[in-house]
């Protein structure tokens, strides 16, 4: 950018003295606001831009609307009738609720989210779990399955040996059970699909790239399972017996799960149903074991690495991450024999391009 940046004094209130010959610069902001004042509701400039791109981009301090009918949501503040944006992002209007969704921000948990986290601290009857949010989440001792079955009472000895279940640095997946007043989350792992993570690799992407779906755990080709934490933490592991068992009936239950709403509570329970017979054995100390499956072959490790790298490639291209895209990207990556070369800049871009192109082609095909 070599153009000269000349600044001309504004003729605001402050500018009391004359002197230099001034040319008032055409300022976007001013024009924008004046249009707002005299325009009718239908032909406001921002309404038009919404129609054009589907998204209205605003930056902090920008006037979003001067219409008092809107309720002000996150990412906004207001003075009298004027609603301003407090973040850079896109305007979202749901019914009467106006909010601005930042392009990027820390994960903010919502009840029912399936998240992957790392134990940061062992405290009094609770674990503090880093889920990449603004504050650590809390996992109460009472919200986990303990060895010896779900229906067992928590005893004092459990409190004393909390570190033998989960200790600092351990990874786990869990569901957000509820939110506290200040926005921090309380987790639970009261299902066999939650709990300590083993047999794989961790990978992190911006949380905004994870697309919420009714199921966050997917079995991928190549005997690999991915847990797409809504918080952007991803766990890739070798498909276990339980993983493969879960896949089969979940297809049959698809209609039931669809009815159950976004949290997928029904499908969760159905997952429990199949394993309830094995509850005793599964709930033994084994679920808190730190030992990886000794039978993981080098081939599977390589596949996990490849998946991890294609996820990084998708994240690099800022493409939302879904099971389908991971599989497509994985297939697109097969032309590169060296797994390590996948995180080279050009390769990542090529993979992202391939995935988007492939989707476009399929879209046209339909």
């Amino acid at each position, binding site marked *: 950018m070599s153009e000269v940046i000349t600044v001309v004094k*504004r003729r605001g*209130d402050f500018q009391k003295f004359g002197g230099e010959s001034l040319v008032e610069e055409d300022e976007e902001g001013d024009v924008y606001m004046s249009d707002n004042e005299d325009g009718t509701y239908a032909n406001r400039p921002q309404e038009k831009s919404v129609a054009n791109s589907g998204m209205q981009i605003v930056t902090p301090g920008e006037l979003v609307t001067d219409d008092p009918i809107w309720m002000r949501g996150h990412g906004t503040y207001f003075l009298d009738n004027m609603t301003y944006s407090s973040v850079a992002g896109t305007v979202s209007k749901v019914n009467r609720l106006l909010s601005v969704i930042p392009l990027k921000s820390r994960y903010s948990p919502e009840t029912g989210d399936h998240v992957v986290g790392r134990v940061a601290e062992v405290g009094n009857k609770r674990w503090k779990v880093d889920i990449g949010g603004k504050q650590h989440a809390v996992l109460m001792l009472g919200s986990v399955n303990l060895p010896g079955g779900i229906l067992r009472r928590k005893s004092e000895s459990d409190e004393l040996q909390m570190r033998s279940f989960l200790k600092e640095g351990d990874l786990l997946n869990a569901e957000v059970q509820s939110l506290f007043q*200040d926005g921090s989350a309380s987790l639970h792992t009261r299902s066999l699909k939650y709990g300590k993570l083993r047999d794989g690799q961790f990978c992190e992407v911006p949380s905004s790239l994870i697309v919420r779906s009714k199921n966050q755990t997917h079995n991928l080709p190549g005997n690999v399972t991915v847990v797409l934490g809504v918080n952007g933490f991803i766990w890739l592991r070798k498909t276990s017996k339980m993983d493969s068992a879960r896949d089969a009936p979940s297809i049959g239950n698809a209609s039931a799960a669809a009815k159950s709403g976004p949290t997928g509570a029904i499908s969760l329970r159905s997952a429990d149903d199949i394993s309830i017979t094995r509850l005793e054995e599964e709930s033994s100390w084994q679920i808190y074991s730190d030992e990886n499956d000794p039978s993981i072959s080098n081939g599977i490790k390589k596949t996990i690495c490849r998946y991890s790298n294609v996820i990084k490639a998708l994240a690099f291209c800022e493409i939302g991450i879904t099971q389908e895209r991971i599989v497509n990207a994985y297939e697109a990556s097969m032309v590169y024999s060296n797994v390590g070369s996948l995180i080279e800049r050009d390769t990542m871009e090529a993979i992202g391009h391939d995935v988007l192109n492939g989707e476009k082609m399929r879209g046209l095909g339909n």
Partner: protein
Amino acid sequence: MSRLEIYSPEGLRLDGRRWNELRRFECSINTHAHAADGSSYLEQGNNKIITLVKGPQEPSNKSQVDTAKALLRVTVNLTKFSKSERSKSSHKNERRVLEMQTALVRTFNRNLMLHIYPRTLIDIEIHVLQQDGGIMGSLINGITLALIDAGIAMYDYISGVSVGLYDETPLLDTNTLEENAMSTVTLGVVGKSEKLSLLLVEDKIPLDRLESVLAIGIAGSHRIRDLMDKELRRRAEKRVASALAR
């Protein structure tokens, strides 16, 4: 030593600018996506500044917890190689740097919506790779960009610039040579308003000239705000476009 001609009779400055021209201003955001929640890289003339924003996050120290709002912390690292002569000290606990940090914290304390992030810490880390005058203004610009990149809610942009006064002519966006030769004023302006969050005068200036210096400083800050806004919108549009391409 010959005296430098700070401002020629033809109205040109040492680097060929006129009195009301800013230096080259380039910025980008999200430059350190893995290291921080928000990051920016800013070049304002020869000032080169990396800013990282981490947070809002769990405070590392329990004593830092404020139950009502987030705590803001700014660390300025003036690298030893940032000036043409390598400095011996690391500047770390110099009063000048401490003062800068305090001023920056206080500037942004008022402008961020800290009350919506209770019990958290927002850590801002600045690395000055190269400095060439008007550093305080550039730091403010870098922080504003990085905070917006991190998605932290704020009331408005804050943009900063320094203005010198040569005889009776205000010179916008001073570099080191100019800064050493005359007294300068640093401003931090809120958005497109005429409200000053930061105002620093470090040398003698006639009281009656101050007003004209502030006027051009405010206009310059508004221009910088526009330049930052342009870059942010460019990024945002790219982002939205790739999201729509799904």
